[in-house]
Each structure stands twice: as structure tokens, then as C-alpha cells.
């Protein structure tokens, strides 16, 4: 690969790539992000390649595996350019038809299009899909256009033009100033202004400084950073190089979790390609600027996403946070000034440099600027990654983009901010999304997880689940976190299993205070949030569990019983056949009766009972009615009645 020795050579190279490309030539982009790969995207790419080969079209059609465009719910996602026709849930069997119809005949394969569940209309283009239409996609929009393993694709899409602008005539102070003016706040959770963090490092006396990408994304259900690092690794790298220039760092690290093999591969490849092109290493783009990047794989500890624990881990020691009251941008990795930012924060930097801080600040609320990627999961129709402007309301995200709650269920809460975030109830759905707004509501922005819960979700059990996660992930160094969470988990488990006592809520509050006030790091300090926020908005559920041994959802297994209503049971006996525990007595035209002793509460009966009967109910907090006597169980149909 030829080195690019000046910003001009980069521009020439970009023009050369573009001149070789025919904008009208069909290009089949298949998302090969982790989500789509799991649903068979690699097989789809292979099928396209062999079909194109078979039809002798290889010189006329470009096929590529790209990054994740976010609509993971309907993967594998295929977008065909230049028309931008979007096909969802594509299988290898669909491929010959797509090639014959769309590529050769320029016709749309209707059955693979998105159908709007409300209007029934089909969406031909990606931008017509309601999931995408209401987003503002500045960061993630390139994922589907770029072959994530080819630097040429990134450059063809305008990549490294921000670096070229910086090295072509901006001083480090000017870069710093632009980032400060943009008020870009850290996307990893704390929301600390990136420019101020950078400035602290730049002004630190130590000449050796580091810049670090935090790609240790560990929140359950969150995968924004994975999508960026897998799908568009060069955008993160470009941001990091610019940051290093502004701060005065010569070395950088990407700390990425081991469980993201594709992200590890793509960022490693991106670094190699950037080095070969002279965008990393000595004399970057012919300037005096020198910068190198190494990839370090984390071993999967959630706490290593905490900045000082991450640095301790990078140094080769056990990933535990440091007790020191000194900012790591002044004393960080190996005691040197270190700027650590999240993947998404770095990816925003090239956009800010290219478009200016004014462009960036025109989006957002007073305190939170730009866009934010959220991973929208849980009881929501459209699962996936959504990039939205700060200031959008939660209601818009849930209903306009997410398509609401499936199965006609009622919305109950949305959990934001990862495991140590909080649950926000329906009455706050009009809350504007921003760092300070979410914190005020008792939750937090976190790195961008959003888990939607419907009426069937028990909020006490939700708190128990997240506290259990945090108990497992506590590093174990400080007492209020290690021991406090252990006890909180025990008490919450007791409550959900019907062994709650008066005073449990108060004990949990005392433990929350100890962790919140005295824990060593942010993990421990924020760990009580799942409990505190659910208590704040759903106190009645705690009281019902403790006092009445009743789960209002009803969902807690130990507190519910399944019961078949003899008045509505039609004796179809499906449940009798399907019950894996053999706990249902019945037969054709006989009322089914659940043996409560044998029932394992798996819920199969409720699932298989035909919806026109809906005879199975969950009962909580009251005794199960006695079974109908044996001799009265035969169902007499209307026509048979005398």
C-alpha cells in the first residue's frame, strides 16, 4: 500500500478511488455486524457472490459486507445501491430472486420489504422505514455504505478529511478549542465535557501522554460501541488521532472487550491499514506528528469500563479502580496524563472538525449537544440501534421509532443508563433525553442502553436482576459495594420469593446510602440506582410483595399460581398435551385442572391456550380456587343441552 505523504496526496487518492467507481453501478451491501452474522449474513454474502458469479455479473455488480445499520430486529439487512432498496430478513434462498429481479430487471422484490404495521404500507427505501425516518443518523449512517475492512471505502466516503484538515493547518490549540466549543460530552456515561478533559491533559507538565478508546462496553443489552467499532473502525481511529494531536500524545490504546472478536479484528485491521497509508506512525501525512495505536483486549469484567480500573487493567494488573482523588487526565495510565473517551465520543470528533462546532451545537438541549446512539431493546416492536438528536423525548423513541409495545401490552417503564441506571415510568415519558435531564429523573444517560418493559414486568424483580448483575461484576475491593450489594441482592431475592419482611425497604435504603456515599468508584456509587429508582416510582410493588406476598405484574414465580378458569375452559386439552411437567389433568371436552403441586410455573399453558378462550390466568396474592369436582368436569356443549 502506498503511503500518503501530505493532505493533498490524501485528497488525490480519494479522487482516484472515486474516479474508478461508477456511481450507477449496482452495489449490494449486506450488514455483517455481529447481530446479522448471527442470523446468517455471511451465508447471504456468499450466496450473492456465487449467484453474481453464476450470472456472469461480477464486473457489473459490487457486493460487500458492511457495518450494522441498526435494525437488528429484522436482520440480515441488505441495501442495494444506488436506489437504496432495503430488504429485510434476507436468507440465502432469497438471493437468486433478488439478483434476477432487482439487479437485472430493476424491479423490487415486494415480499422482502418492510411493512409498516400500522398503515400496512411497504417501504422500498431505508429512509422510508419509520424506524429510520425519525432518527438523525450522523454517526451510524455510514455503516451500511462502508466495507468495514477496507480503508479505501472509508476514504471514498470522505474519511480522514478531518485529519487532513487538522494537519493541513490547524494548531493543537485550535482543535482543542473547536472540541471545547462543541460541548461534546463523554458518551460513556459520565457526560464529562471532552474538550475540558483534553485540555487538562494538554496542560499537564508530563511530556508523555496517552489517549485511550474505551470499548469495554459491558451493559447488558447495549451494543452501540460494538456497532461503531465493527462497522466503521476508521471513524473511531480518526477521532483518536485528532485527539492525540490536540493533547500531544504519541501513543494510544484501544481497550476492547475480548467478547467482541469482530470489533477486535476490524479495529486491528484498520490500524494496520492506516499505518500502511501513513495515517498512523511517524510523519503522519508528511507532518512532524507521530502517533501509534495498540489494541488491548479486556477479559470481560464490567468494572474495567470504569476509567481507572481500565487503566489498571491496561497496566497488566487486576482491573480494580484506583482510590486516588486525582483525575486520570493528569495522572492516568502508568502515572501519565491520559485522555480516556468512549468509542462514540471519539467517533464524533471527525464530524465536529469537518462541520464545525456550530453545526454540532445546533442539535440538542442546553446541556447536551449532538446526537446519541441508543440500543433500544426489551418489549419493543423495533429492536435495534437508534441514533437520535439529544432532546428528543422518550415517548418519541418508544413509539415513533420503536413502534411501541408488541402484543397490545401496556408500557410500564424504560430502563436507561445500563445496569446502574434507573427505570423511568410512563408519566415521565415526555422527558427530553439529555445527560442532566435523565439524572434529574433518577436515572442516567449511561452509555446508551434502553430497555423497554411492559406491564408483565415486575419492577422488584427488575431491580433484583440488575443488582445481581452488579454484585457479580463488583471488583470486590471496597466494603459498601462488595458486601452491600451482596446483602441487597439477598434481600431483594427474598422479597421476590415471598420471604420479604417489614423493614426490608429501610435496610435496602441504608445499604444504598452506604454504597452511594462511600463506595470507591462509580460502579459502586451508582449501583443502588436500580433499587432506588424502582422504589421511587413503583413503591406499591415493593409493598405488595412484602406485605401481601403478591406480585402485581404478576411475574415472580414464587408468588404466582397458574389457574384454568372452569367457566372459560373449552376442554380442547392442548394445555394437557403441552404441559412439560404433566401437571394438567383433563382431556377432550373435559375441564383442565392444574395440579399446583406438580406445576413448575413455566407458563406453557398460558401460551398454548387459544386466545379465543384465554382460560389460563395467573393468580398472585390470593388462594387458588379449589378444583371443580371430578364428576362436574365434563363440558356439555350448547347443542347437546336438553
Amino acid at each position, binding site marked *: 500500500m502506498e503511503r500518503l505523504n501530505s493532505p493533498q496526496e490524501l485528497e488525490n487518492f480519494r479522487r482516484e478511488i472515486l474516479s474508478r467507481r461508477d456511481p450507477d453501478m449496482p452495489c449490494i451491501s449486506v450488514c455483517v455486524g455481529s447481530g446479522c452474522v448471527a442470523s446468517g449474513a455471511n451465508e447471504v454474502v456468499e450466496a450473492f457472490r456465487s449467484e453474481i458469479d453464476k450470472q456472469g455479473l461480477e464486473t457489473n455488480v459490487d457486493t460487500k459486507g458492511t457495518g450494522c445499520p441498526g435494525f437488528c430486529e429484522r436482520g440480515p439487512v441488505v441495501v442495494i445501491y444506488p436506489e437504496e432498496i432495503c430488504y429485510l430478513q434476507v436468507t440465502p434462498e432469497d438471493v437468486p430472486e433478488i439478483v434476477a429481479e432487482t439487479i437485472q430487471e430493476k424491479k423490487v422484490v415486494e415480499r422482502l420489504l418492510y411493512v409498516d404495521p400500522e398503515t400496512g404500507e411497504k417501504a422500498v427505501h431505508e429512509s422510508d422505514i419509520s424506524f429510520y425516518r425519525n432518527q438523525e443518523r450522523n454517526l451510524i449512517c455510514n455503516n451500511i455504505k462502508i466495507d468495514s475492512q477496507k480503508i479505501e471505502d472509508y476514504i471514498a466516503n470522505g474519511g480522514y478529511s478531518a485529519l487532513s484538515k487538522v494537519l493541513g493547518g490547524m494548531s493543537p490549540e485550535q482543535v482543542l478549542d473547536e472540541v471545547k466549543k462543541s460541548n461534546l460530552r463523554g458518551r460513556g456515561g459520565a457526560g464529562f465535557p471532552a474538550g475540558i478533559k483534553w485540555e487538562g491533559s494538554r496542560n499537564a507538565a508530563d511530556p508523555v501522554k496517552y489517549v485511550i478508546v474505551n470499548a469495554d462496553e459491558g451493559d447488558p443489552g447495549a451494543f452501540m460501541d460494538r456497532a461503531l467499532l465493527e462497522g466503521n473502525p476508521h471513524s473511531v481511529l480518526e477521532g483518536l488521532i485528532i485527539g492525540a494531536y490536540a493533547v500531544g500524545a504519541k501513543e494510544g490504546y484501544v481497550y476492547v472487550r475480548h467478547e467482541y472478536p469482530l470489533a477486535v479484528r476490524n479495529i486491528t485491521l484498520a490500524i494496520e491499514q492506516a499505518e500502511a497509508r501513513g495515517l498512523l506512525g511517524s510523519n503522519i501525512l508528511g507532518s512532524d506528528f507521530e502517533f501509534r495505536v495498540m489494541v488491548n483486549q479486556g477479559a470481560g*469484567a464490567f468494572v474495567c469500563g470504569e476509567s481507572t480500573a481500565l487503566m489498571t487493567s491496561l497496566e497488566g494488573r*487486576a482491573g480494580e479502580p484506583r*482510590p*486516588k*482523588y486525582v483525575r486520570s487526565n493528569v495522572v492516568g495510565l502508568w502515572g501519565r496524563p491520559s485522555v480516556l473517551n468512549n468509542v462514540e465520543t471519539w467517533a464524533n470528533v471527525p464530524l465536529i472538525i469537518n462541520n464545525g462546532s456550530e453545526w454540532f451545537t445546533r442539535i440538542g438541549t442546553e446541556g447536551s449537544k449532538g446526537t446519541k446512539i441508543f440500543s433500544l431493546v426489551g418489549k419493543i416492536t423495533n429492536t435495534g440501534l437508534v441514533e437520535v438528536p439529544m432532546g428528543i423525548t422518550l415517548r418519541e423513541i418508544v413509539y415513533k421509532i420503536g413502534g411501541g409495545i408488541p402484543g397490545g401490552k401496556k408500557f410500564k417503564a424504560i430502563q436507561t443508563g445500563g445496569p446502574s441506571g434507573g427505570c423511568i415510568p410512563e408519566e415521565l415519558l415526555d422527558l427530553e433525553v439529555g445527560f442532566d435531564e435523565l439524572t434529574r429523573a433518577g436515572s442516567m444517560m449511561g452509555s446508551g442502553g434502553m430497555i423497554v418493559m411492559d406491564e408483565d414486568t415486575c419492577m422488584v424483580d427488575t431491580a433484583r436482576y440488575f443488582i445481581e448483575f452488579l*454484585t*457479580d*461484576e*463488583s*471488583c*470486590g*475491593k*471496597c*466494603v*459498601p459495594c*462488595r*458486601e*452491600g*450489594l*451482596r*446483602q441487597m441482592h*439477598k434481600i431483594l431475592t427474598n422479597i421476590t420469593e415471598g420471604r420479604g419482611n417489614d423493614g426490608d425497604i429501610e*435496610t435496602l435504603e*441504608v*445499604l444504598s*446510602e*452506604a454504597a452511594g*456515599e*462511600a*463506595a*470507591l468508584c462509580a460502579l459502586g456509587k451508582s449501583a443502588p440506582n436500580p433499587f432506588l429508582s424502582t422504589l421511587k416510582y413503583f413503591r406499591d410493588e415493593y409493598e405488595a410483595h412484602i406485605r401481601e406476598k403478591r406480585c402485581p405484574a404478576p411475574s415472580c414465580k414464587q408468588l404466582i399460581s397458574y389457574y384454568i378458569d372452569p367457566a372459560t375452559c373449552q376442554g380442547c386439552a392442548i394445555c394437557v398435551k403441552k404441559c412439560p411437567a404433566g401437571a394438567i389433568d383433563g382431556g377432550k371436552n373435559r375441564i383442565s385442572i392444574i395440579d399446583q403441586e406438580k406445576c413448575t410455573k413455566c407458563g406453557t399453558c398460558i401460551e398454548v391456550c387459544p386466545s379465543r378462550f384465554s382460560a389460563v390466568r395467573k393468580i398472585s396474592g390470593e388462594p387458588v380456587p379449589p378444583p371443580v369436582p371430578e364428576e362436574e368436569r365434563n363440558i356439555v356443549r350448547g347443542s347437546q343441552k336438553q
Partner: protein
Amino acid sequence: MSEITLQIDGKEVRAKEGATILEAAQGAGIFIPTLCHHEKLEPFGACRMCIVELEKRGSTQIVVSCVYQAADGLVVRTRSEKIDRVRRTILELLLAHAPDSFVLQDLAREYGADPNRFDKEGSFCIHCGLCVRTCAEVAKKNAIGFVGRGINKEISFIPEIAARECWDCKECFPLCPTEALQAAYLLAMGLRRPPARNSAPLKNSSWMST
């Protein structure tokens, strides 16, 4: 080295620049309870017993005094309703592991901690790390370390090193706030494994019962 003046519990206290709040308080005879602190060791900040309140522009901030540096004009309170409540909770949590520890019992009396508030989890070790850090920082033997993470974390002797080094050292034993029970127990367990061929055989093991 220049001196600084700060206020602790309403008292003017002078300290060397760079001293921690804990050191400043100790120099002035003001007691702050600690479990994981030792003057010979690097600050660890794990037990959180030494928390104090800083008064800053009308609001308060809780910090651990063994790590936080004293500074000129700092206003510090070593006790308050909230601090006592958090210390009490910490003690109650630790008493679930080491109910017989004299150090914990004494502090429990002072702070009104109920030793039976939480279910007993008799593992004795309270993870103060005094043994591990003394071995690493003072004795420089690294014969004992932490293994595992979070609630599964334990101290464990490395049998090969322990068999060679611990017999003549035992510097960590008197430091254990839970009466060396766990340390001695684990050491014994470690040494019970078959010794490496070229390591010196143990003369006797009578110390274990003393």
C-alpha cells in the same frame, strides 16, 4: 517542607504539605477509625471506615481520609449523623463475616452496630488486604495474594512461595483484624499440599494450634 493549616472538627490542625487528612488528624490526636490503613503501606481505600465530610461552599462531600490530601483551609468533620450511619452499616456488613473480631466488636460498640443485622457468612476475611500488601510492599515476598473477584474474592497463599518464605516471616499475622484466623487457616491449607521436591521440609506444624 511547608506546612498547611486545616480545620478538623472545629480544631485548627497543622500538617505537612502532602499529608492525607488521616495523617493530619492523627498528628493532632484526632481519632478516625480505620481497618485497611497501615502507616507502612500505600493507601488502599478499601474499607471506607475512615470517611469524613468536607465542607465546601455550603455543601458537603464525603471522602476517605486515608487517601484525600489535606489542603490549606480545608474544613473537615470526622463525625456526623450520616458518617456514623455509613460506618455503622460497614461494620454490620463486616460483622456478618467476622463476628468474633475484637477490632470490629470495639468499633461496633462505639457506633451502635448490630452484629446480627445481616445473615452470617462466616468467611472471617474482611478483605482489608493488610496481609497481601504487607507481603508485597514490606516483606516483598508476594507469598499471599487476592484470588477471584467481587463477592468471590479471597486471600490465598501461593503454596510454593509460602512454603519457602512464611515460616521465618509471619509479619502479616499480627496485622489481621480478624485475629489471623483466616490467614493462618489458609496458610495451613496451602502448606498441606505436597511440597515441591526441592523445597525444605517443615520442621513441625505446632504453631498452627497456638
